[in-house]
């Protein structure tokens, strides 16, 4: 656990970077510090490992006052990841990862063995260990940076804009990787970003800063989206926060409509008898193959098998129970029929969902959320 108690950082010219900050980072959780540039989020992070010294206040790291410890020893117990990776260009990947264990006196062979394990943990081929940083892509280097920070198994991990310098696809995969690692390792993570999307995706808790080093709101991501404290938070979180909040709503107990779902060997007469404006045709095994509109049914012979008719695409599906309502809504918007196709874990059609059912599900979940967030 990390606790900020009335922490202020004032520079010699009078600039206040962080102003009487009180903040608690629970052990084993990811706390994201987010805010506009110059809001003091990075300064707050750097005060934890004393790269920046606070002017006033106390910072406790696992109950111990950071300011009363030898900074060099303190830092060896805190992992640190930065945007530009900060890998040592003159050391192999393996030796980069082994840095802190070697500083702590580990034997070189043991430290390198541990380094190879860590490379695997962050999703890299341990054979890359013999290469030098410049021989790796930006995304790979960033993974090495994470492995290096984890090498001595520190309880605390500080990450300063760790994914800002890579392209959006790589960024998304690194974020997923961090979430996966966290379910496994349960470190106390403090991550700084200017990207609200990232904060909401990776944070267990989000601390949103105002300019000049004060906090606007601290809470779970869903709180910021669902119950912004004021206009500043509302603006910062963005105009589509309603849509993004749907990411936190599950799709486990939806009433899926199975009446317009027909197998490929069903006839046009069967399809017409459903009365539905669109029918969804499935293959053997239940995989959805395409949508057929009513006018196309009317133009075909009543004994024709559905699989012989031209069908419109239905490639955007969502997995009922696993995906969020946001994915369901997305699938409905992208569907030619205006209905989302739900599949089960095996890809078999579970049913379809129209806008009206999605709207009802949103209303029910929002009411649950307002009552007490038992989702």
């Amino acid at each position, binding site marked *: 656990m990390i606790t900020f108690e009335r922490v202020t950082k004032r520079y010699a010219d009078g600039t206040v970077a962080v102003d009487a900050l009180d903040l608690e980072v629970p052990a084993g959780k990811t706390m994201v510090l987010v805010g506009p540039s110059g809001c003091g989020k990075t300064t707050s992070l750097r005060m934890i490992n004393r*790269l920046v010294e606070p002017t006033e206040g106390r910072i406790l790291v696992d109950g111990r006052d950071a300011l009363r410890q030898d900074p060099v020893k303190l*830092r060896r117990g805190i992992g*640190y990841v930065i945007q530009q990776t900060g890998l*040592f260009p003159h050391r192999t990947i393996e030796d980069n990862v082994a840095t802190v264990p070697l500083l702590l006196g580990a034997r070189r062979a043991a430290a390198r063995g541990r380094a190879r394990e860590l490379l695997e943990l962050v999703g890299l081929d341990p054979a890359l260990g013999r290469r030098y940083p410049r021989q790796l892509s930006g995304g790979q280097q960033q993974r090495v940076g994470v492995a290096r920070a984890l090498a001595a198994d520190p309880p605390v991990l500080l990450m300063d804009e760790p994914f800002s310098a890579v392209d959006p696809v790589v960024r998304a995969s690194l974020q997923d990787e961090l979430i996966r690692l966290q379910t496994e390792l349960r470190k106390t993570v403090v991550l700084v970003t200017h990207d609200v999307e990232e904060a909401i995706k990776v944070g267990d808790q989000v601390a949103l800063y105002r300019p000049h080093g004060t906090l606007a709101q601290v809470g779970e991501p869903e709180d910021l989206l669902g119950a912004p404290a004021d206009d500043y938070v509302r603006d910062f979180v963005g105009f589509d926060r309603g849509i993004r909040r749907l990411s936190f709503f599950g799709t486990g107990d939806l009433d899926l409509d199975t009446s317009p779902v027909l197998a490929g060997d069903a006839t046009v007469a069967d399809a017409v008898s459903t009365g539905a404006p669109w029918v969804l045709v499935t293959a053997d095994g239940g995989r959805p193959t395409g949508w057929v509109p009513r006018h196309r049914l009317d133009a075909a012979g009543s004994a024709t098998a559905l699989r012989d008719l031209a069908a419109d695409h239905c490639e955007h599906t969502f997995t009922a129970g696993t995906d969020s309502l946001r994915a369901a809504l997305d699938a409905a918007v992208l569907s030619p029929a205006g209905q989302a196709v739900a599949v089960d874990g095996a890809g078999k059609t579970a049913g379809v969902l129209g806008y009206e059912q999605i709207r009802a599900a949103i209303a029910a979940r929002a009411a649950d959320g307002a009552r007490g967030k038992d989702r």
Partner: protein
Amino acid sequence: MDWSWIPSNSGQILQLTGENAYLGIVPALIGLVIALPLGIAAARWNWFYPPTLTVLNIIYAIPSLALFIALIPAFGLTDTNVVIALTLYSLCVITPNVVAGLRAVPAAARQAATAMGYGPARRLLTVELPLAVPVIIAGLRVAVVSGISLASIGQLIGVSQLGYLFIDGLQRSFPTEVYVGLVLIIALAIVCDLLLVGVRRILTPWEAR
């Protein structure tokens, strides 16, 4: 060109070449040893660099012959005189490279080292200096090559090396000697330069080739 002169004087030629190599390499190495702490201090304390650079540039502006003569009262007409003068010149060439090399260390690598628990001395020795090696060796190469060439002026105060062949060849109107001296000085410079390139490659396996 009298080719037969070469084999009949090979002993003397070899000795002069050895002396010239000594006067080129030793001052550069002593210069490196002094330039390192000087450059480290200048890189660390910004205020210290401008005056240091000014003093070094003034030294570098002193004509070599004048410097040799100025050192005669203290060191006489000796090798030491030339070694000291050339050391001063190599210091002028290497120190700015030490500073530039240290300043070129990526800020992120330096910050990461601090954040992982390196003390200042360990960070300097195991992160900053190794990363500055290519730029420092670039300075050393210039110092060695110019030292090998400048050493010949030592002949004017009677310190022997390949420059002897120029004076002797001129006085005897015997161009072969001058040509041999010139070719050997250039060859020596090239060999020493290639050796330093090899040293750099061994010390920096991490660099792009």
